[in-house]
């Protein structure tokens, strides 16, 4: 099997240039590529476009990249609680494109699957529909939406093998599988990296064909945004 193993996050991000389009997996801070984000912070990058469902918080996740002014544009569905984000947005330093979450997921899925455009009902009659083709099918209106693709996709998985096969855990899967397929170069960081052949082929969420680089990450913080405890 083709071996995609690289040493670490530093090696993973060494060829990324300013102005690149990046996808970063995760929902909130759950399932984000922590190691790669840290390594990106050490590179002199600017004017990046980041496609990610959320934009991190002030001191974690993509929020750290915003703080270093590496990001020109965010493409997200919800940008949550992030003061520096708000400041840059209001000052015009940062551009934001908000996309309905399902449309975002499907546009990324379409990018990986070679579907250049598709129709979806989300956003019909709202400002999201502005400038987009509207068409009726079976009596209901739909918007035409285009695929999204990236120069680099960063995904975080639970287990991976040297062939690039990935298994995610819990709801940390979220946007990672679609982004893995939609990146020209996809970089996977995993909590546990095993030799090819050790993962059950029937349990794999992302087939290795989509992954160009894989490494075992370290020191995962996995910050929790809303620690909610049951009283019982």
């Amino acid at each position, binding site marked *: 099997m083709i071996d995609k193993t690289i040493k670490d996050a530093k090696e993973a991000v060494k060829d990324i240039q300013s102005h690149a389009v990046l996808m970063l997996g995760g929902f909130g801070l759950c399932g984000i590529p922590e190691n790669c984000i840290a390594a990106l912070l050490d590179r002199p990058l600017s004017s990046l476009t980041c496609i990610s469902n959320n934009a991190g918080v002030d001191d974690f996740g993509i929020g750290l990249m915003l703080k270093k002014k590496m990001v020109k544009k965010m493409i997200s569905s919800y940008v949550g609680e992030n003061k520096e984000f708000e400041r840059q947005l209001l000052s015009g330093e940062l551009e934001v494109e908000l996309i309905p979450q*399902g449309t975002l997921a499907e546009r990324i899925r379409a990018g990986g699957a070679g579907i250049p455009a598709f129709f979806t009902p989300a956003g019909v009659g709202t400002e999201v529909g502005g400038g987009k083709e509207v068409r009726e099918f079976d009596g209901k209106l739909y918007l035409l939406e285009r695929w999204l693709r990236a120069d680099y996709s960063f995904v975080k998985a639970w287990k991976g093998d040297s062939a690039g096969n990935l298994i995610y855990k819990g709801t940390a899967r979220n946007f990672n599988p679609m982004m893995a397929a939609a990146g020209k170069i996809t970089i996977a960081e995993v909590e546990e990296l095993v030799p090819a052949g050790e993962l059950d082929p029937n349990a794999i969420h992302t087939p290795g064909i989509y992954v160009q680089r894989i490494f075992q990450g370290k020191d995962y913080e996995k910050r929790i945004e*809303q620690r909610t405890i*049951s009283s019982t």
Partner: protein
Amino acid sequence: MLSKEQIAQRIAKEIKNGQYINLGIGIPTLVANYIPDELEIVLQSENGLLGIGPFPVEEQVDADLINAGKQTITMARGSALFDSAESFGMIRGGHVHLTILGAMEVSENGDIANWKIPGKIVKGMGGAMDLVSAARQIIVAMQHCSKDGSSKLLKECQLPITGVRCVNKIVTDLAVLEIMPQGGFKLLERAPGVEVAEIRNKTEGKLIVPGDIPEMVLP
């Protein structure tokens, strides 16, 4: 006037056995606390889970298991995990029976506005536009009036809308109302002690009052 908990309690009575349900953030999340034990239902979390369980006890907390409100959760027995494309395929494809969500405004033809206030920082629509465009049944949990006393049940939404002609039912602190196919808020129930006159007064959109309106029965 109903408290938030009572709005959630009243909405819980709309739930039927065997339903797959998506609960939005805020009052809708509270609905989960009032679903009768004898009903077998499944809660969908649009970040990739069918079968939300109770919040975890301290030792169960897992950063890799959260709901769409980013709260730590557990999984119910028989749950399934999937990615965001599958999750919204499920929603868009009409497989979720019932969506319960909050709103800032609802219009008499069923338009809903709940994602953006001009002049304020816009955080984004998240999954709301997908949910309202495709759910089989949409129930809105909201306050009947804003803090300044103006009606939030309008002829037309003033705020940017999230979806058109999609709301089926509304439960407010004052009433239960149904959106009629030809437009208009049909009054179904009054909150305990609230008169029809008050509801009429506080509903800017067309209110339809079909005879005597019963008081809500809360557990």
